[in-house]
C-alpha cells in the first residue's frame, strides 16, 4: 500500500498556532501504528481560523480537518482520518468549504494545493505556462498584454503596471532591473507573505516575465526582516530555480532583507535601501522607470502585481480584464484581519462590498460584539463607520468614499475601540517611521500626537481639533510620499465619522 499523502501547512500563520507540532505528531503516531504516511508541507489555504488545517488526499479529493492540535492526532488516527472518515474536526472536502468555493482564485490558485518548493508540483499545476509563452512572444507583445489586462499596482498606489513596464522597455540603459517590493508592512496584510511561502516559483516566474518584457537581466526581491519564513522560502526557491536553470545569467534574482523600516515599502526608499543607504524618499521625477536602482531603468512592483503576470500571459490580458469593475480589472487577494470571526485570504474580482466581505464571508466580529470601525488599506487607510460599509472594494469607489484600497488589508474593530486612540496611533506610527525628509511628516506627526493628547485631556478642545485638521492639510500637501501624505486619512476619518470619541464623554461617564 502506498503512503497516504497528508498536507500540513508550512505557512507562518499556521506555524504560529502549532502546525509544526501537528506535523511532528502525525509522523510519530503513524510510526507508532506502523502506517505509511507522506507529509507535505503546503502553503495555507487562507482559512486562518481553521489553522492548523490538515488535509488528507483521498480518491474524491482532499478532505480537511481543523483546527487541529497535536493532542487531537491520536483520535484522528482512531477515527481513520487517513481514509477521510468522520471526526469532530471534519470539514469535509476542502474544495467544498464555502469560504474557498466562492472565491475567484487566479493568483492563489496553487497556494495550499502544492508543495511550495517542488518544481514538479509547480509545473503539474500550470506553473511556467506564462513564462513558456512569454519566451515565444516579442517583448512588446508581453508589455501590451499586461496593458490590456488592466493590471494595476497591488502595493497600494494602483498605477497601471503595463504603463510602467512600457516606460522601462522604452528607456535606454546598459542594465535594467526588476525589483519586487516585498516590504509588506501594512497591518492587516499578509498576501505577499502567503505568496512567498506558498508559491514562491510564481513570483520568480512573474519577475522573469517582467525581465523578458523590458530587457532586464537582474532582479531583487526586497523582503522585510519581520518575515523570516518568507525569506527562507524565497531563498530556497531561488536556489532550486538556479539548479534547474530556470534562473541563469540571462535573468537572475537575489533576495535583499530589510532592516525594520516601514518607509522602505515606499518604492524610492526601497531602492535607496538596496543601494546601501538610509531609506529616504527620493523626489520624483526622475521616475524609477527612467532612473531607478543604481540610476538604471527599473520596474518596481509589489509581489501581487508580479505574481499576477504569469496567469495574465498564460491566459491573455483580455481574460484577466473580464474580471472586476470599472477601472479596477482582474482579481484582488483581499485580507480579512483583526477582530473578525473568519479571518483569511479571500481572492475575488473587484467590486464586492465591505459589508459582504465582513459579514457574509467574515462572519462579523470574533468577539461577537457589533462592528464599529473598519480600517481598509493599512495604517495609512481610512476608518470606515458602519454607515459606509456598502462601499465597494474597488480603487475608485474607495477613493470616492474618502479612503483607499491600498494593499487590500481590512482590519475589523468592535465597539470597544476608542477612535481617538486610533487617531493618535496613526500620528505616533508616522512619527516612528518617518524617514525625516519632509518637515510636515517628520515634525507634524509628533505635533499631532501632542495635540491629540491635549484633546484627550480636554484642553482647549475645539481649538485643538481645528489645529489637528490644519496639521493634516499641511501633511497632505507638504509630504513627498504616502506616509506623511496619507497619515491624515485615518486621523481625519476618525474625526469625521466618530466625533463622539473626541468629545469629553469618556471622563463624564467615568465620574
Amino acid at each position: 500500500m502506498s503512503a497516504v499523502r497528508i498536507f500540513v501547512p508550512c505557512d507562518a500563520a499556521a506555524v504560529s498556532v502549532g502546525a509544526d507540532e501537528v506535523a511532528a505528531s502525525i509522523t510519530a503516531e503513524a510510526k507508532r501504528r506502523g502506517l505509511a504516511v507522506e507529509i507535505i508541507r503546503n502553503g495555507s489555504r487562507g482559512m486562518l481560523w481553521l489553522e492548523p488545517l490538515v488535509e488528507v488526499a483521498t480518491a474524491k479529493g482532499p478532505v480537511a480537518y481543523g483546527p487541529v492540535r497535536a493532542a487531537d492526532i491520536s483520535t484522528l488516527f482512531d477515527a481513520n482520518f487517513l481514509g477521510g472518515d468522520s471526526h469532530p474536526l471534519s470539514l469535509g472536502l476542502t474544495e467544498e468549504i464555502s469560504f474557498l468555493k466562492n472565491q475567484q482564485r487566479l493568483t492563489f490558485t496553487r497556494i495550499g494545493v502544492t508543495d511550495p518548493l517542488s518544481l514538479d508540483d509547480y509545473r503539474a499545476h500550470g506553473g511556467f505556462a506564462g513564462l513558456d509563452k512569454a519566451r515565444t512572444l516579442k517583448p512588446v507583445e508581453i508589455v501590451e498584454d499586461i496593458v490590456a489586462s488592466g493590471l494595476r499596482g497591488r502595493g497600494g498606489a494602483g498605477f497601471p503596471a503595463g504603463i510602467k513596464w512600457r516606460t522601462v522597455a522604452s528607456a535606454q540603459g546598459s542594465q535594467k532591473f526588476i525589483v519586487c517590493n516585498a516590504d509588506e508592512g501594512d497591518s492587516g496584510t499578509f498576501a505577499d507573505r502567503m505568496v512567498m511561502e506558498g508559491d514562491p516559483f510564481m513570483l520568480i516566474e512573474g519577475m522573469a516575465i517582467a525581465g523578458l518584457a523590458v530587457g532586464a537581466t537582474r532582479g531583487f526581491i526586497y523582503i522585510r526582516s519581520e518575515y523570516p519564513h518568507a525569506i527562507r522560502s524565497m531563498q530556497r526557491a531561488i536556489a532550486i530555480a538556479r539548479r534547474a536553470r530556470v534562473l541563469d545569467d540571462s535573468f537572475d534574482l537575489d533576495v535583499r532583507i530589510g532592516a525594520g523600516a516601514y518607509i522602505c515599502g515606499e518604492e524610492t526608499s526601497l531602492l535607496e535601501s538596496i543601494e546601501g543607504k538610509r531609506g529616504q524618499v527620493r523626489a520624483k521625477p526622475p521616475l524609477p522607470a527612467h532612473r531607478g536602482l543604481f540610476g538604471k531603468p527599473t520596474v518596481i512592483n509589489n509581489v501581487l502585481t508580479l505574481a499576477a503576470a504569469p496567469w495574465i500571459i498564460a491566459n491573455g490580458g483580455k481574460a484577466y480584464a473580464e474580471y472586476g469593475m470599472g477601472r479596477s480589472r482582474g482579481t484582488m487577494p483581499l485580507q480579512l484581519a483583526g477582530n473578525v470571526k473568519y479571518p483569511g485570504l479571500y481572492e475575488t474580482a473587484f467590486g464586492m462590498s465591505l459589508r459582504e466581505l465582513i459579514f457574509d464571508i467574515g462572519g462579523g466580529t470574533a468577539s461577537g460584539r457589533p462592528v464599529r470601525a473598519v480600517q481598509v488599506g493599512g495604517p495609512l487607510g481610512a476608518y470606515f463607520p458602519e454607515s459606509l460599509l456598502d462601499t465597494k472594494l474597488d480603487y475608485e469607489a474607495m477613493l470616492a468614499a474618502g479612503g483607499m484600497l491600498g494593499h487590500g488589508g481590512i482590519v475589523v474593530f468592535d465597539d470597544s475601540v476608542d477612535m481617538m486612540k486610533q487617531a493618535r496611533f496613526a500620528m505616533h506610527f508616522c512619527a516612528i517611521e518617518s524617514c525625516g525628509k519632509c518637515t510636515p511628516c517628520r515634525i507634524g506627526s509628533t505635533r499631532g500626537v501632542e495635540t491629540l493628547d491635549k484633546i484627550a485631556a480636554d484642553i482647549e478642545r475645539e481649538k485643538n481639533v481645528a489645529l489637528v485638521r490644519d496639521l493634516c492639510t499641511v501633511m497632505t500637501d507638504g509630504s513627498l510620499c504616502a506616509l506623511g501624505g496619507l497619515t491624515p486619512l485615518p486621523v481625519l476619518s476618525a474625526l469625521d465619522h466618530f466625533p463622539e470619541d473626541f468629545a469629553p464623554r469618556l471622563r463624564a461617564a467615568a465620574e
Partner: protein
Amino acid sequence: MNTDKIIELASREVAALKAFLGPDAPAQGALLPLLQAIQHEFGYIVPDTIATVADELNISQAEVRGVVSFYHDFRLERASRHTLKLCRAEACQSLGSEKLAAHLTSRHQLEPGHGKPDEGLSVENVYCLGNCGLGPAALFDETLIGRLDEQRLDAIVAGARK
C-alpha cells in the same frame, strides 16, 4: 579587535554583490547585508567596527553611522539572550495587544521598547508580523506566535529569565 572578521565579512558581501551585478557595482550596495552579517555574528553592531566597514566599502563613517541609526533592526548595544517582539499594529490592537503590553509592564516590569541587555529577555515593539488574522502576534526569537495571551506570555517570560 574584530577587524579581521569584519574585513572577511566585507570581502564576502562585496564579492557576492559583484558576482551578481558585475565588477562595476558600487561596493556600498553591500552595506545592508554586511551590517546584517555583523549583527548576526556579534549580536550587535560593535561600535569599533564602523571604521573598518567604512574603509572596506570606501564610504565615510558618517554614512555607515547614518545607516545604522536609520534602521530599527540595528543595535549598537548588546542584546538580551532572548528577544520578544510584540506586535503593536492595528490588527493586533483590535485583538487586545495593548492589554498584553500593559500586562508585561505591570506584571513583569518589562516595558516594551525599554529592554535592558543584562536581562534574559528584552521586549521590543514591532509593527506587523503578517499574522493579522491570528493576533495578537509576537515573534519570540525566530518563533512566530499567534493568538498570544497572558498565560503564554507568563510562560515565555519565566522560561527566558531562567
